[in-house]
């Protein structure tokens, strides 16, 4: 399979984008469609501690999560839903566990689909076990285990496959800790994009053999780490403007999965998905106000704006007063999806979209950046340099900077000194970077391999 770089936007105008609708909807088995005119709620639950001790206990745990979710879906009348399972180590490492766990969930969902006609989808997100400093990203024991596991999940009936690959992590981590925007750009934008191509060419080819969609990959290890480290308004670890720049850069990286043939719905924790949807037109999953169980972000409503599959991120598997968590959190995302579907059915989708967006657009620089008209601008900056993974990542960051500064100058977005100072500093560094990828890589390769012991250039063919 080749890599088809995007040099044009899928949407002519940001206003065309709205939740529940994608230019290229995706059909999965058990009759679920994404982006075809309705929003699908998703639930994701982490296995209980200890259940990883044997294949048998983990398989039971998986079946139980699916069953509890499905039972609630029916009890409150959800037309469709998705169960996602993010693999723990053992599930991916032992391909036979991955198979058995997927099968157990597939059987439950099929039973409910047959009995009630409730549409259901099953996502398996394999774990990226690869460790740069232990065997590298390519062809290592861990890398091979992942490839095998993908195959088995497809066989066992997964509706789609996702991942959160870690390419570039070593350099990115260094950049986050030092506030080094060039390292962030190199880690996410360059190294990340290279590894994505390696990983997704393979995965797309594997899925093609089955009734399983290659759905996509989020930059959890990069942009989400930045967002998480940046924290709430009183966080002290990373500036929110810096986190916003990392997010813009990550769009250029996560786009690569689609360029390799991933179809969506893109994985929920990619807050960069609005940008990628604008470029490619594929459906996306997102998380936000109903993912408070998993982490605190400062844009809980905004991420609904153009979502096609609405997720809770991840929660402990245990009991609430309102029932087991797979039921409780599917109900949470289910009701939000129902509201969006009502808006679609009554012709108010765009109004509701704008309400979601406006609620968080100026709460934080990250919200400003991701508000769909601005996300669209970042997308345009990317496709302008679409064929060059370095230049497009740099352009994304520069456009992001412009967007935030404009909002600040229009007195819409307030910033602290720290936010403003880092933004200015990072911007001038970004501006001063070379216009040729080769020179940029050269510069980076002179510095980072020396400073970062875990960085393994061979993993990127460098």
């Amino acid at each position, binding site marked *: 399979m080749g890599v088809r770089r995007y040099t044009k936007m899928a949407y002519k105008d940001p206003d065309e984008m709205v939740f529940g609708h994608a230019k290229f909807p995706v059909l999965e088995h058990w009759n679920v469609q994404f982006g075809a005119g309705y929003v699908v709620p998703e639930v994701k639950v982490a296995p209980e501690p200890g259940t990883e001790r044997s294949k048998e206990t983990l398989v039971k745990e998986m079946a139980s999560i699916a069953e509890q979710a499905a039972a609630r879906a029916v*009890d409150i009348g959800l037309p469709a839903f998705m169960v996602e399972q993010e693999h723990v180590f053992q599930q991916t490492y032992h391909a036979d566990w991955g198979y058995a766990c997927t099968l157990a969930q597939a059987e439950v969902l099929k039973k409910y689909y047959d*009995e*009630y006609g409730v549409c259901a989808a099953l996502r398996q997100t394999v774990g990226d076990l690869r460790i740069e400093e232990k065997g590298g990203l390519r062809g290592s024991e861990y890398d091979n285990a992942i490839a095998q596991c993908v195959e088995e999940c497809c066989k066992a009936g997964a509706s789609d496959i996702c991942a959160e690959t870690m390419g570039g992590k070593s350099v990115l981590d260094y950049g986050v800790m030092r506030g080094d925007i060039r390292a962030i750009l190199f880690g996410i934008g360059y190294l990340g994009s290279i590894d994505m191509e390696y990983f997704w060419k393979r995965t797309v080819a594997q899925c093609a053999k089955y009734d399983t969609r290659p759905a996509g990959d989020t930059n959890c290890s990069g942009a989400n780490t930045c967002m998480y480290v940046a924290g709430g308004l009183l966080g002290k670890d990373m500036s929110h403007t810096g986190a916003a720049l990392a997010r813009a850069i990550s769009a250029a990286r996560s786009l690569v999965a689609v360029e390799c043939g991933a179809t969506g719905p893109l994985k929920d924790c990619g807050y960069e998905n609005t940008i990628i949807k604008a470029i490619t037109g594929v459906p996306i999953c997102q998380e936000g106000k109903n993912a408070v169980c998993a982490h605190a972000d400062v844009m809980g409503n905004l991420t609904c704006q153009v979502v096609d599959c609405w997720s809770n991120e991840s929660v402990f598997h*245990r009991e609430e007063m309102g029932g087991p968590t797979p039921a409780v959190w599917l109900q949470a995302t289910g009701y939000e999806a129902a509201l969006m*579907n*009502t808006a*679609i059915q009554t012709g108010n989708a765009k109004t509701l979209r704008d309400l979601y967006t406006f609620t968080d657009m100026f709460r934080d620089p990250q919200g400003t950046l991701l508000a769909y008209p601005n996300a669209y601008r970042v997308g345009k900056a990317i496709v302008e340099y679409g064929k060059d993974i370095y230049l497009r990542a740099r352009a994304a960051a520069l456009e992001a900077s412009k967007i935030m500064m404009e909002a600040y100058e229009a007195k819409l977005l307030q910033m602290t000194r720290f936010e403003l100072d880092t933004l200015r500093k990072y911007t001038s560094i970004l501006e001063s970077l070379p216009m040729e990828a080769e020179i940029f890589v050269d510069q980076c390769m002179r510095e980072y391999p020396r400073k970062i012991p875990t960085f393994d250039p061979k993993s990127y063919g460098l």
Partner: protein
Amino acid sequence: MALLDWAKKADFDMIFKRYNVIIEGPAIKPEDDPDVKKVLPTAEPFKSLAMAVIFGDSEKAVQAAKSALDRGTAPLDVIEKGLAKGMDAVSALYAKGAYFLPDIMLSADAMTAAMQVAEQKLGRAREKKGTVVSFVAEGDPHDIGKNLVVMFLKANGFEAIDLGRDVPNSQVVDAVKKYKPVMLTGTALMTTTMTAFPKVAEMLKEQGLSVPVFGCGGGAVKRDFVESYDMGVYGVKAFHAPKLAEAALAGKSFKDIRKEYPKIVGEFVAEYADRM
């Protein structure tokens, strides 16, 4: 009004589905249900006795009992071959969603009324399957679950001692001493009252009392909490209580019941999904 305009154009199926309506089969008479047929007596007077219970008709049940006794049917047969079979049928109908709680209550009322007539003739109360003591924890006013448990136990032939709500721990222990039940059921719904359970369990232990099963259910109470102390078994639905009591009668320990819960109650129980 926007709402009414919307109602005209919206496709409801995209917003919600009423699965209860969707899966509803054609209306059939209770006596035509295959599971009822399995337990329903075909011979008279038992059939009429059972049918009166199934329809929750106290008057008819009493009448049927009286006329059966008059015609020489043994009082114990009236109860066991007639009334109790009707109640079994009702339980089956409830389990499959064809009957609802009030139906069960009315059937239980009918059965009780008719049974009293038979017992009068018998000259004594029918022997009960066994005794169960039920209470709501100290400081807790939530007693509907407990009331249901008591009702289901009675309807299924158990002696149910109802200690009421907001019951001091010591009173529970005294009752266990006094009645030597096969099972003790505590109900609590609050984080701060469910803490009575381990205390009661501890006190029972101290006194050398071993109640084979210590069943508890309710709002804030979850399985892991109940299983964190000895003798605790987590009860999910009130109608499970008689089945659990039967298991206890059959000599199963609290550990057995924990492990085999879904098997004992004979249905999928989400809270025990990992033990299916």
